């Protein structure tokens, strides 16, 4: 392969570093109205009186909108395919507010200062209601967070708002209780994960205006332009043909920009005023009023025989979706479906639980999407079991984990809202990943611990993980390739580059198939008017799904070109050989270059536009796999802990661009380390998020990240473009469990609730000492 699997520089990195106009806010009209949103100071309240007159009268204020200005159309902001597996439980503005930061009113003014002043002039009388802030008390609580009659599920997801349930699910293979009864060893542990924040560097940003055709044009920092267009049309009853959504460069998303956030607000303001408008979220709004990761509780039980054969897994989950049910069901499902198949040889496995409403900032999509939560619980409890069995956790995993050619019954049963899709693991290099990772970290000499000094101890720990590559039979991508005079191509994709550099990867796939170089492929992504449909950048789908679509379009282009060359050379297609630059007729010994062909097609002879379309929908979702190894260093007197080494060995099939794939893995690893050790989420007893800025919410900096070693296994997935699977999410899954396992191996204490802050570790050390005494 000449282009694929090559370390090619990204196509847009240079101009981004040079500061070119590129991100949504760079394209806002200079005379845009500035929008500010009045947000709820209460976790749960009913708006009894809202007086906007003083705000409206302030010079410079153009419009003030409250819930009375909106028709009650329930919808979901989730930004998923249609019909969504998330309940339609949200109104653009509602008379109820359900978390601190929920939208109360919208102000648009000629400048920012006026808009801010006007927001302060709105007088609201609230009837403050008793909130539910502890998600473990939400189910069947007498306080019902969503009593409104219009809300509904789109198809059965276990939605039961009278019991504060956004979604629920249960499945059992075999008989877990019976199997556990027969096991030599049974372990039982509970785990908690926190409401991690995406903390992408670009805050959510969008702007709107009317174009010369009186159509609404929105630039947005979104992961899902096509879903945004649909949701705006449905929620605001604007004909979909009148809406155009453009996604320019996006400054990071990680799932946080999958949903619709400000787009409905700018659309409402511009529709009603006729004026361009823009909304840039403050960082506080990003923290308080977009999405978080779903916090979860896991009650895990494992049963095994003395020889280390794992027999049963019981995984019961309680998930907190916050005020609205976006991604409630699917994130929770993935906590089972992309975790439990790792141990596919068990006799029985049970998974189930509830996703409850609370009065917290809503949870939504976030890289890892349930798998990181589930992985933390399962891979931690596996080590607990190994300890009880007195077995090296690697030997245990080698014996029990899924291997190439095998399957798991779970794949067929558990999907994302629908049934699953049966799959065998045609590529699964987990055995290699584990073996190689062991060597790279130096497991044999370092396991379980090394004493550095009187107060300092090091330990190693590991975890294995899997993810998916798109959602089978749902996620679809498409591509259009257009030949231009001069012999270069446009590649138009709906796939959404949000910084993961998918434009580059898709151009590589296209160039490889067309046997050309990447500079001949001009990529446009994404614009709902110009680029073909794509579900968007989520579920680790772009390389696999959209990549296959590009490959299909490129294959079609190649045959079309050969047809046209055959006509030009007055021969038949079977005689033509194409090398990317020229077409040769071996018999007649004649040739025509691509450039000449394209020029003749457009200017001189047999004129026509050559363009092809390719689309793809996955029939399976081949999981990438990885083994992650952490080496931690702990000060036993203070609990201060750092990860001094993290080794990742990843099977993602062919790496279309090895350096960019490495960046995906390492970016995920660092976010995972953040979730494991640093990203503490603090909420007051009144439901106010304390950690609502980058000053109080600490993401790892370059000084926290000591040494990362990342390697890829040789692997070729037949169904993927040039053998590729996905690599976007897999990196984030292992750090929580691997690090907690390493801490345990170092000092004998186990942290079951994230993050493992130094103080928590110190308390655990004390507790252990007290118990020993």
């Amino acid at each position, binding site marked *: 392969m000449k282009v694929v699997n090559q*370390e090619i*520089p*990204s196509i*847009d*990195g*240079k101009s*981004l*570093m*040079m*500061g*070119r*106009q*590129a*991100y949504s*806010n*760079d394209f806002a009209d200079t005379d845009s109205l500035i929008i500010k949103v009045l947000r709820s100071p209460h976790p749960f309240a009913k708006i009894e009186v809202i007086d906007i007159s003083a705000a409206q009268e302030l010079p410079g204020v153009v419009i003030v909108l409250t819930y009375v200005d909106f028709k009650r159309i329930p919808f979901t902001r989730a930004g998923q395919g249609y019909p969504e597996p998330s309940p339609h439980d949200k109104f653009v503005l509602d008379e109820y507010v359900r978390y601190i930061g929920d939208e109360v009113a919208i102000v648009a003014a000629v400048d920012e200062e006026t808009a801010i002043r006007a927001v302060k002039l709105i007088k609201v009388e609230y009837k403050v209601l008793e909130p539910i802030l502890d998600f473990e008390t939400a189910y069947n609580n007498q306080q019902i967070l969503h009593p409104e009659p219009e809300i509904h599920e789109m198809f059965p997801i276990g939605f039961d708002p009278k019991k504060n349930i956004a979604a629920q699910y249960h499945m059992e293979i075999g008989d877990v209780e019976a199997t556990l009864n027969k096991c030599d060893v049974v372990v039982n542990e509970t785990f908690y994960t926190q409401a991690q924040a*995406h*903390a*992408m*560097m*670009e*805050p959510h940003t969008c702007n709107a205006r009317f174009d010369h055709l009186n159509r609404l044009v929105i630039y947005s920092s979104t992961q899902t332009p096509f879903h945004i267009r649909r949701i705006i049309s449905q929620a605001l009853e604007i004909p979909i043909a009148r809406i155009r959504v453009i996604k320019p*460069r*996006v*400054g*990071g998303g*990680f799932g946080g920009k999958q949903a619709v956030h400000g787009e409905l607000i700018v659309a409402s303001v511009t529709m009603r005023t006729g004026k361009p408008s823009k909304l*840039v979220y*403050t*960082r*506080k709004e990003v923290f308080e009023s977009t999405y978080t990761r779903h916090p979860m509780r896991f009650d895990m039980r494992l049963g095994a025989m003395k020889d280390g054969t794992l027999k049963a897994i019981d995984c019961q989950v309680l998930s907190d979706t916050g005020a609205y049910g976006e991604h409630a069901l699917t994130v929770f499902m993935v906590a089972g479906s992309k975790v439990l198949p790792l141990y596919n040889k068990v006799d029985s496995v049970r998974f189930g639980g509830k996703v409850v409403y609370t009065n917290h900032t809503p949870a939504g999509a976030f890289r890892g999407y349930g798998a990181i939560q589930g992985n933390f619980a399962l891979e931690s409890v596996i080590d607990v079991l190994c300890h009880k069995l007195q077995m090296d956790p690697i030997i245990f995993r080698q014996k029990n984990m899924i291997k190439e050619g095998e399957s798991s019954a779970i794949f067929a049963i558990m999907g994302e809202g629908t049934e699953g899709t049966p799959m065998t693991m045609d590529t699964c290099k987990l055995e290699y990943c584990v073996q190689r990772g062991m060597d790279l970290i130096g497991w044999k000499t370092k396991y379980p611990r090394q004493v550095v000094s009187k107060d300092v101890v090091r330990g190693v720990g590991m975890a294995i993980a899997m993810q998916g590559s798109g959602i089978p039979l749902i996620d679809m991508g498409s591509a259009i390739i257009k030949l231009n005079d001069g012999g270069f191509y446009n590649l138009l994709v709906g796939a959404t580059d*949000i*910084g*993961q*550099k998918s434009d580059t990867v898709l151009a590589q796939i296209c160039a490889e198939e067309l046997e050309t170089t990447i500079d001949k492929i001009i990529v446009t992504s994404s614009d709902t008017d110009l680029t073909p449909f794509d579900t968007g950048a989520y579920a680790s789908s772009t390389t696999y799904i959209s990549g296959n679509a590009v490959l299909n379009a490129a294959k079609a282009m190649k045959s079309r070109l050969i047809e046209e060359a055959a006509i030009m050379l007055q021969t038949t297609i079977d005689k033509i050989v194409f090398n990317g630059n020229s077409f040769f007729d071996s018999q007649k010994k004649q040739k025509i270059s691509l450039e000449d062909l394209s020029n003749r097609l457009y200017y001189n002879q047999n004129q026509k536009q050559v363009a092809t379309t390719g689309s793809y929908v996955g029939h399976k979702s081949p999981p990438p796999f990885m083994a992650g190894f952490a080496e931690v260093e702990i000060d036993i007197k203070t609990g201060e802990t750092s990860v001094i080494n993290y080794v990742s060995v990843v099977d993602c099939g062919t790496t279309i*661009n*090895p*350096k*960019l*794939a*490495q*960046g995906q*893995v*390492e*970016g*995920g*690893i*660092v*976010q995972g380390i953040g979730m494991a050790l640093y990203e503490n989420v603090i909420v007051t007893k009144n439901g106010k998020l304390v950690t609502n*800025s*980058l*000053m109080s919410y600490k*993401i790892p*900096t*370059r*000084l926290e*990240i000591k040494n*990362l070693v990342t390697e890829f296994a040789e692997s070729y997935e037949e169904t993927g473009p040039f053998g590729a699977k996905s690599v976007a999410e897999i990196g984030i899954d292992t750090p929580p469990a691997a690090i907690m396992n390493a801490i345990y191996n170092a000092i004998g204490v186990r942290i079951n609730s994230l993050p493992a802050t130094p103080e928590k570790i110190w308390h655990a050390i004390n507790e252990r000492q007290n118990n020993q005494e």
Partner: protein
Amino acid sequence: MKIEFTLNNRTISTHILPGEYLIETLQKCNIHSIRRGCDTTNCGVCTVLLDDKPVPSCSVLSAQVDHHSITTVEGIAHETEKLSAHFGKEGADQCGYCNPALALAVFALRKENSHPTSTEIDEYLVGNLCRCSGFKNQNKAIAAYFEEEAYQEEQ
């Protein structure tokens, strides 16, 4: 009030509000490379060079830069291009939002220390947050840039 300052070797005379921040003034001068990230001086995305020293343009008042000089990547395109080539080689660029600011900090470091160790690089750049890259590819690219520039200078 009126101020005069040098922006990328151009003299700018402009009226500002006394409480106006440099980031706002620069955006009015059509500088796209300077962006907001956090509102609390924690992310580094709005970094500019003030008399060759990296500072957060969200926290420096425009009044403070009267008669001083401001540099953004728009003013040192050639140098930025060289650094970006290393980022490209190492796959260190992802969403790119933090990259112009990071580049300026790198150039400032080079002025102070043309042979930094990897710890010195980390310490100098720690205030430039990045949520995408995992940092290591960035650091490799930056180290390669320093190496190449040192080599060029010796020639």
